[in-house]
């Protein structure tokens, strides 16, 4: 699904990554962990092509990201659901329209998938808030909405950046089980988090691998977690 070959990245200062090679196989479930500021968000941005590798090659769905046109990137993003760490929404549109936004911009008729949308909003516990504007939502509600928006297109890959950062334990368990269920349906999942308890809880439900960013590189963490 997503492959990195000898990828390096720097924001202009020192190198954040150096020579990372990695393959996200279809149907795999990965956690990406490491202390704050180590580059988890940056790594995910490389995967959904918000950033371009300074050297090396990122391949998304078999194609070299650096060779893609802007339209190719847009189309490929429809197959990757992303939960951003800072959950950006269109603040002038109600929650339901925001969650349906990927359908809208892809030219699909959102009203034809209304049942889907309702079910999804139920699942993340936001059915009471469909008409609320994003600025009126709490941090946790925004994160649940972001997850709903990430999966509405039924993407092949889901990348979640600290999706449980602002929610309580119970809700984080629910979000996790949603991700696990999506994984069971064959989706490829990668979750960046520094929450080790969440990782442990997930390992009980799914064969998740844990990647740790360390020394400008990504390593597979041992079973010691």
């Amino acid at each position, binding site marked *: 699904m997503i492959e990195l070959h000898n990828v390096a990245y720097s924001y202009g200062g020192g190198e954040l990554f150096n020579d990372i090679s990695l393959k996200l196989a279809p149907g795999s479930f990965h956690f990406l962990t490491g202390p704050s500021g180590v580059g988890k968000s940056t790594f995910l941005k490389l995967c959904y092509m918000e950033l371009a590798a300074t050297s090396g090659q990122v391949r998304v769905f078999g194609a070299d990201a650096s060779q893609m046109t802007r*339209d190719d990137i*847009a*189309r490929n993003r429809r197959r990757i659901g*992303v939960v951003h760490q800072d959950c950006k929404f269109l603040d002038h*549109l109600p929650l339901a329209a925001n969650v349906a936004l990927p359908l809208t911009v892809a030219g699909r008729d959102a009203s034809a998938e209304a049942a889907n949308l309702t079910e999804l909003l139920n699942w993340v516990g936001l059915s009471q808030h469909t008409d609320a504007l994003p600025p009126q939502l709490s941090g946790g509600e925004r994160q649940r909405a972001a997850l709903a928006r990430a999966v509405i297109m039924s993407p092949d890959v889901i990348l979640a950046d600290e999706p449980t950062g602002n929610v309580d334990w119970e809700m984080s368990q629910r979000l996790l089980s949603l991700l696990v269920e999506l994984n069971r349906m064959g989706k490829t999942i990668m979750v960046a988090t520094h929450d080790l308890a969440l990782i442990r809880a997930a390992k009980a439900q799914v064969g998740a691998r844990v990647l740790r960013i360390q020394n400008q590189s990504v390593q597979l963490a041992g079973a010691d977690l």
Partner: protein
Amino acid sequence: MNQAIVALRALFVGDVHADRVVPPTGYTAWLTLFVSGAMAFLAVFSLALSLATGRLADRWSSELARSSTLRISAPSGQMAAQTQAALEVLRTTPGVASARALDEAEQRALLEPWFGPDLPVDSLPIPQLIEVIEDSDGFDAEGLRQRLAGEAPGAVLDDHTRWRTPLVKAADRLRLLGVISIILIAATTAAMITLAANAALAANLQVIRVLRLVGARDVYIARAFVRRFTLRALVGAGVGTVLAMIAVAILPDAQAAGGFLTGLGFQGVHWLLPLLIPPLAAIVSFWATRTAALRTLGGMT
């Protein structure tokens, strides 16, 4: 062709969803309406100026080019003889199509505006005028003057070019200024709409970024902006054009008052020309906004 129709349909009918994803663009909306209206108003006047001076220049050069005047001042005894001699010279001058001495009534009509209808023309030492019409080749004015000096010493040739040329030149220059004004107005409209579009884009960077991240293509995002600005320019320019056309239509008619003055206005099918201004403004706006939007998008991933 089909594709163009689809694109135009998308532009005017619009995609409700694409429109909603960008919040209302506030003051830039009014700015665009006002600028297009004002610029269209000015464009109509520049157009009227160009067309009117064009007519003036054409008339001056065609009506006056072919005619000259011979003026004979002589003691009353010699007047008839010199007129005859001058007519004879003209008859044998190559390039002269016809020559005709004005009769008394015609001369009086020419003088009337200055001296009133009661002027006793026959009792005054008024020069005899001969109207000379050139053929398409024209005559050699200098050669004619020399021959006249021998045959009719009281004859003075006034071949009109002396004062016609600078007038026609001035009219042509005025027409050119009108055309330059129209071009400047179009360029200014493009510049102002680009500024307004850039302001709208900058105010919506966050929106654009979100749209990009959820998989919107550039044209989808650009269209939301382009559509608004194009429609606003069309409406603004439409209002400005109609107001200016009304203003031109109710201008007092200068035709009756002065022979050479043509009214600043449109004649006949020229009334259709200003109607091109609103669609042109829409095209300028479409192009300016699209360029601005795609440039902004190009700077994002």
